[in-house]
């Protein structure tokens, strides 16, 4: 257990290091960072001085270690576009993205699992067929189009829900304001979280369904039926748990990609999160921001994966190897 945890953490650290290297190379290869920093007027000498001051004349490995060192402390430099420390900007915007991702994630996971189980159990029901077919539409429409259509219908035509922004937010701490405490905050969350969660929802639903059908075909389910175990228990006690095991991993990955996909949703709904900033950063080649964002996403993934592993460990007895099993 501890060994697994340590191995996972080392692995995670490796992943982060690789990502850090990619981020770092962005600085190195994508144009001269100096050019990104000083104006056109700066003289050759000014540039040389700045190079020196920033340590850009040091050997690459040293620069890399400095970069990692800074990154660990949350130092990513100044955003070229916003002219503010990247870490500040991110700290300010992250709560919005996390809130959106969380709500979409909960939506996707709960509905995804629920519908997946339903469609697996009622394989031939018309409602299942309907859900399955419409879910395909869900994965066949680009997210942005879904968002735009939702806005068109629910904001413009029906005027039920706001089309942009987070609504009223409440400042919880200095850097963290939440929309989850106000009605308008919740109203503002509905459309974006549906847009964001829909794709993952369909994906999870289909996965759960497939997995559940697979489990329902296993010998131990057959044997449970042969013992006259009640249908309910077979479905929800025997099959569901086994279904959810492999789903945990995917759900974890999905949760991570929700944060990344927030880029699109945030663009469409003008959601003031980090994704919106990232897409601008790409267009403006705002390297410090890009690299910080990359590391952030990687970190989120790594943490989610760690949690998933632990969860797996907690849920799957087969991983808890005991002394007794060794002596057979």
């Amino acid at each position: 257990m501890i060994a697994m945890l340590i191995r996972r953490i080392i692995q995670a650290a490796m992943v982060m290091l690789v990502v850090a290297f990619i981020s770092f190379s962005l600085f190195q290869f994508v144009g001269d960072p100096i050019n990104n920093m000083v104006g056109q007027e700066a003289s050759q000498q000014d540039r040389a001085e700045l190079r020196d001051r920033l340590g850009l004349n040091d050997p690459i490995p040293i620069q890399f270690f400095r970069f990692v060192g800074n990154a660990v402390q949350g130092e990513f430099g100044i955003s070229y576009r916003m002219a503010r420390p990247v870490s500040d900007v991110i700290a300010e915007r992250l709560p919005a993205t996390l809130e959106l991702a969380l709500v979409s994630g909960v939506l996707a996971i709960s509905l995804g699992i629920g519908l997946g189980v339903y469609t697996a159990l009622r394989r031939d029901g018309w409602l299942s067929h309907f859900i399955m077919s419409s879910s395909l539409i869900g994965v066949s429409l680009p997210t942005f189009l879904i968002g735009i259509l939702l806005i068109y219908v629910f904001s413009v035509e029906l005027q039920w829900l706001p089309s942009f922004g987070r609504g009223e937010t409440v400042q919880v701490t200095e850097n963290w304001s939440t929309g989850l405490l106000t009605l308008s905050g919740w109203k503002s969350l509905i459309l974006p979280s549906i847009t964001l969660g829909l794709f993952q929802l369909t994906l999870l639903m289909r996965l759960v369904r497939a997995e559940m059908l697979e489990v329902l075909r296993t010998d131990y389910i057959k044997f449970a039926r042969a013992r006259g175990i009640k249908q309910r228990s077979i479905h929800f006690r025997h099959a569901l748990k086994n279904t959810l095991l492999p789903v945990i991993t995917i759900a974890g990955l999905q949760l991570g990609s929700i944060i990344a996909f927030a880029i699109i949703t945030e663009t469409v709904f003008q959601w003031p999160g980090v994704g919106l900033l990232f897409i601008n950063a790409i267009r403006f080649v705002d390297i410090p921001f890009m690299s910080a964002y990359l590391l952030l996403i990687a970190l989120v993934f790594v943490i989610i994966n760690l949690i998933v592993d632990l969860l797996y460990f907690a849920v799957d007895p087969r991983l808890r190897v005991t002394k007794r099993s060794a002596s057979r």
Partner: protein
Amino acid sequence: QTLRWASAGDSLTFDPHSQNHGQTHAVAHQIYNPLIYLDLDSEMQPGLAVSWSVTENPNVWEFKLREGVHFHDGTPFTSEDVVFSFQRAQHPNSDMRTLISSVVDVRAVDPLTVHIETNGPTPLLPNNLTNLFIMSKAWSEANNVVTPQDYSSGEENFAVRNANGTGPFRLISRDPDVRTEMVRNDEYWGVGQFPMEISRIVLTPIQSAATRAAAMLSGEVDFLQDVPVQDINRLSNSSNIKMLSAPENRTIFFGMDQGREELRTSNIKGKNPFADQRVREAMNIAINRNAIQQVVMRNQSVPAGMIAPSFVNGWTSELDSVPETNINRAKELLAEAGYADGFNVTLTCTNDRYVNDEAICQAVTGMLGQAGINVRLDARANSIHFAELQQGELDFYILGWAVPPLDSHYVFDFLLETKTPNTGAWNFTGWSNEEFDSLSRSLPTETDLNERNAKIARAWEIVQSDTVYLPIHHQVLNWAVRSDIDFAVQSQNQPMLKYLSFK
């Protein structure tokens, strides 16, 4: 009454001297006051100065200041604050310093009088002061912001998110790019003079055009500044929304590098097709400006013949008349110039700066194509566009120009004078004309207005006959407001919300 105000971009900073940027000033006008400002009709109005005139010394302007004005924090406004603000704006960190580069000294004569000395007679000095905001010296010193924010290095000082002005509203919360909140300043010197019906302003930037329109349509916004032209119809059809429009102080045009030996992106080697006036003329008449106006701009533009809108000194309807579109003639001209088979060139264009910029470029690409010039379009973000443009790397580019001083000299100075370190800062065409240069350079110190206007007219003549630029149109500003709001468009795109009233 709360006003929910949305625009495409946000103010970059609340430090009033850090950036010379339209939306930044537009927001700052609600909080800070300059000495003189432009009202809804673009007329100069007394702000913190009640009167201004040139003293006997033609190099010195005298400004009489308003009495009894207090900053938001309660400190009284005096001439010391003006002197301080001018000095602050002249700091190297300040982006405003070019506007007052002619100023050599600012003196407080008495608490309500300021003398400004320039390095020569500067008849247009007041025009340059309409966005120069006055800060409180005491507040700045107390909060350690006596120098402006160094924007490009990412400095963040106290003034960036806090403001202490003399304006009609005070800043109460600031979340950059997300939300800015202001409340009415009941101590404002103009209370009673202006409607001042808004008690609270919530400003939200919305980048995406469709979302912006949707927000207005769904009633989540009361006042929309950057209305997407394509949505004007839809918005004006809505009973809850009123469209306000007026010609904007901005002209869109194309520039061509005519000074180089050889273009970078052309198949023609050894010579530069743009150097030939006939080619430029051919391009000029190949472009169907009316079509662009009707289709691309949906009538929200005024086809242009010159780079200056009607309210600029030096504008005439003849100069601004649009050349007849004539593809055949264009082909002939090209043939005469030796390009019967046309040539290739890349047009570099922004896609996020001007109204429908990319669509305009696409349209022009097609039109020039019909005349035989094979244009390849490269559209990109304005930050990249301007960076490359300023490095003089573009053969054929789009640019928009506003004339805040409302005088042709501003256009000449930046766009047309021969490029030297001090002149022709935005002249990337390589065009240079001695007569023009001397005419233009004599303008600032020409005090005889008739003579001056004659010179301007002559200078325009030279420019037009040489087809230096290809003007396309003057933009039209469109604001949308809730139908119960009474307001008018200001050509500088600076909504002075103190004028706004509700029905």
